[in-house]
């Protein structure tokens, strides 16, 4: 499965029938006569709200003397990192600082890749939680694959800056879970910006939020409409995939032979579902129960798509073999549960058990407070796993808040680990990140220092400005 968003654009262009989109917004042009007798092939822009993110200015930076967890299982004692042009230029022991580099003495401190949260609603359910800002769940019909979370993100949510103080450099903002198809999610750099476009992770794949279980059946069942049951949920997904398959086939028939086929009518909902079927939009699916995840795995095979990550997945520990066979990650909490029936079988060892059985597991927050200390959440899960006898190193567990969520978002080639060539998304921790007492001292995004606890460098949102809480963390 290709996870490269660009390849879809390229793939369509390679059909030789679709001119590469100019991104001029003139999509949905009906077949029309160009004046020279040839019909123009209908095309549409796959990236009409492009990222305008630009890394903040960075300097050549040499961080020295730290214990480094590289995010992919490595631990370097007394290690150094060289950052040049916002990328990791070197990592290892005994490196030389180039002339003119900013030297950061991290002796006695710890370094990890920037924290990545694969499940956040920052911006969509911002602080303060007023009615006007309840922008995360389009609860008007069970399939809202047509909505995009980025169109709800309020960049002035004070939660972004609080998350930065917790080391978060990248986060994935999802629609809520009240619908079968909640809409598209978006991967953001955790940088202050006037616009969400200025936060969008360049070329990160789009995602689709789907939801299993109680939430959709409760929301719509209470209204006396479908879905009211788990079987109604499954029927709702399947009916949509059938329509999406037809839609995809219609476009492909048209693009392959535009003279003998007409272009389908553009449909925002089906655009997104078609992107999933084409392997270009990653499915991030909220499911709690093991048996429901197994149903969804069968459904993905029925319609030929891949689920990338099950979110919450409180019963992932019951089916690590099924998840591994289906190549699906589990994004979980350390110790939440009890709030609804499908969260009743929560155990604290869920994350380490999935990992120890060879699966792809990670922490997630789903919470504006939890996102601020994902390192502590991982520490709890790791300690509980060890206590039951699982042999997992600190360095392996660091992947649970770094490289594994990067993998789940299709951005592992850019971030999530400290490897030469990757974006310099780095956290310097005051102590071992698995200690309650550790704080993020310095947070770098693309090599730029965005948070510096000692020197009071931190962003303040427009909302916080002039309020009682301005400047407090």
């Amino acid at each position, binding site marked *: 499965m290709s996870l490269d968003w660009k390849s879809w654009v390229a793939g369509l262009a390679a059909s030789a029938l679709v001119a590469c989109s100019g991104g001029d917004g003139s999509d949905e042009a009906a077949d029309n006569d160009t004046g020279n007798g040839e019909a123009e092939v209908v095309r549409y822009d796959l990236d009409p709200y492009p990222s305008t993110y630009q890394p903040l200015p960075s300097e050549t930076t040499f961080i020295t003397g730290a214990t480094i967890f590289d995010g992919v299982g490595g631990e370097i004692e007394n290690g150094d990192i060289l950052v040049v042009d916002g990328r990791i230029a070197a990592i290892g022991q005994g490196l030389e600082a180039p002339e003119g580099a900013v030297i950061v003495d991290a002796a006695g401190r710890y370094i990890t890749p920037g924290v990545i949260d694969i499940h956040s609603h920052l911006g969509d359910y911002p*602080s*303060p*939680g*007023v009615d006007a800002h309840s922008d995360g769940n389009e609860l008007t019909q069970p399939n809202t694959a047509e909505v995009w979370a980025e169109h709800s993100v309020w960049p002035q949510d*004070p*939660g972004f800056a*609080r998350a930065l103080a917790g080391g978060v450099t990248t986060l994935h903002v999802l629609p809520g879970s009240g619908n079968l198809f909640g809409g598209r999610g978006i991967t953001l750099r955790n940088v202050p910006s006037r616009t969400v476009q200025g936060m969008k992770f360049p070329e990160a794949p789009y995602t689709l939020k789907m939801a299993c279980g*109680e939430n959709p059946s*409760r929301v719509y069942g209470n209204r006396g409409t479908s879905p009211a049951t788990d079987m109604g949920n499954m029927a709702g997904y399947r009916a949509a995939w059938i329509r999406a398959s037809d839609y995809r086939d219609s476009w492909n028939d048209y693009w392959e032979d535009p003279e003998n086929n007409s272009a389908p009518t553009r449909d925002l909902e089906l655009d997104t579902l078609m992107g999933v079927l084409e392997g270009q939009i990653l499915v991030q699916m909220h499911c709690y129960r093991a048996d429901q995840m197994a149903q969804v795995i069968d459904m993905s095979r029925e319609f030929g798509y891949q689920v990338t990550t099950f979110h919450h997945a409180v019963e992932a*520990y*019951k089916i*690590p*073999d099924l998840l591994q066979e289906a190549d699906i990650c589990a994004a979980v909490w350390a*110790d*939440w*549960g*009890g*709030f*609804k*029936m499908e969260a*009743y*079988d*929560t*155990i*604290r*060892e869920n994350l380490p*058990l999935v990992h120890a*059985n060879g699966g792809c597991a990670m922490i997630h927050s789903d919470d*504006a*407070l939890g996102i*601020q*200390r994902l390192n*502590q959440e991982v*520490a*709890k899960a*790791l*300690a*509980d796993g060890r*206590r*039951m006898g699982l042999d997992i190193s600190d360095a392996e567990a660091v992947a649970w808040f770094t490289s594994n969520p990067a993998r789940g978002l299709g951005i592992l080639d850019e971030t999530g680990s400290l490897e030469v060539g990757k974006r310099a998304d780095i956290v310097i921790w005051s102590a071992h990140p*698995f*200690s*309650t*007492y*550790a*704080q993020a001292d310095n947070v770098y995004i693309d090599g730029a220092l965005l948070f510096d606890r000692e020197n009071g460098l931190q962003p303040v949102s427009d*909302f*916080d400005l002039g*309020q*009682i*809480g301005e400047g*407090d*963390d």
Partner: protein
Amino acid sequence: MKMLVTLITAGLALSGTALAQDIAVINGRVITNTAQGQIETGGVLVRDGVIVEVGANITVPDGATTIDANGGWITPGIFAPFTQLGLIEVALESSTNDAGASESDFSVALDVVDSFNPNGTYLATNRMEGITRFAVFPSTGHNLFAGQGALGNTSGNADSLFETQSFVYADLSQSGASTAGGSRSAAWAFLEAAFGDARAYPGRYSSGSGDALNRYDAAALVDVVRGRTPLILQVDRASDIRRAIRLAEDNAPLQIIIYGGAEAWIVGEDLAEAGIPVLMDPMRNLPSSFDALGSTLEAAARLNDAGVSVAYTTQTADGYFNPRLLPQHAGNAVTNGVPWADAFRAITLTPAEVFGVDDQLGALAPGYIADVVVWDGDPLEVMSAPTHVIIDGEDTDLTSRQTRLRDRYADIEDTTPFGYRH
């Protein structure tokens, strides 16, 4: 308040009988919460449910059960001052959620003792993580008075509520204002009217009805207005906290306790002077509402510096499933400037003080109830966990429904069908 069991008396009654049992907890760093401070290596001797000796070299009697802390930590049990333990099994399933009664005509008269279920599965999951005592709060229903709370232990025994009618809980925050009709003015008018009803009880009800409360609710508020039972007010905004302080001044000897207190640090000196304690979550740092714009990780340290009596809660997690995270919340207070001993006290002795049971609970000292937890490391570190949890002198079981599930699925390749692994 009604003390159901005077525990020390109960313990003494057993002493000298065949049931006499000594437990010696040895070889750990002892946190006493008394003038003894921290004992680098020492132990605690328990007899018949009561602590009889604490020190570097305790006397271990013949026949005593010895628990070796193996260099870990020995502390008083954690006291969670705001929970709904035993009231909720599955929060969204109303059939299993007895915390609130929005359809009831009663309010202050609602007493959690009748809803509390000691067999709730979260008693065990919280006990395993070192929580030994807790306060149980009802949720607000049709008016801003939620009802009467109780104090319990996490043993899961039938008598685990050891005191009832310990306090009355009311919401005077923006949600309370909404319940009262739409404004703070309405909420405080209702509260003042309710106080009037309680003061005039029972006379007013012999000839008519109350201004705010029915007869039963007014009766339940009498001990509050007379200062015998504390009133716990949920308030966040600094101006609301000032209003609460004025309520206490105007209604002496009324005892009030602030719950929530997002902006309490702004009025810390006033709270300290008035002797009003605050139950707050040190991890609450988002301007989650316009009541809480002053939320900050610095709040716990600022309140501590102002001399306010502060006990920590898990408000930002929940009250029925994750009071067990209280040590993590206290640890984050330390990270943000509270001295370790003060933060630990805020989840042990201070809550015992707030609820008036600090002569029996919250410290390791001779004569105290033997709630003793042995940890494999610093209890405020997220990677630490209890190895023993002693409640009322009983070394309790550290398994739960959750550990049973874990064990069932621990070996995915075992050929025994999952349904037969138990």
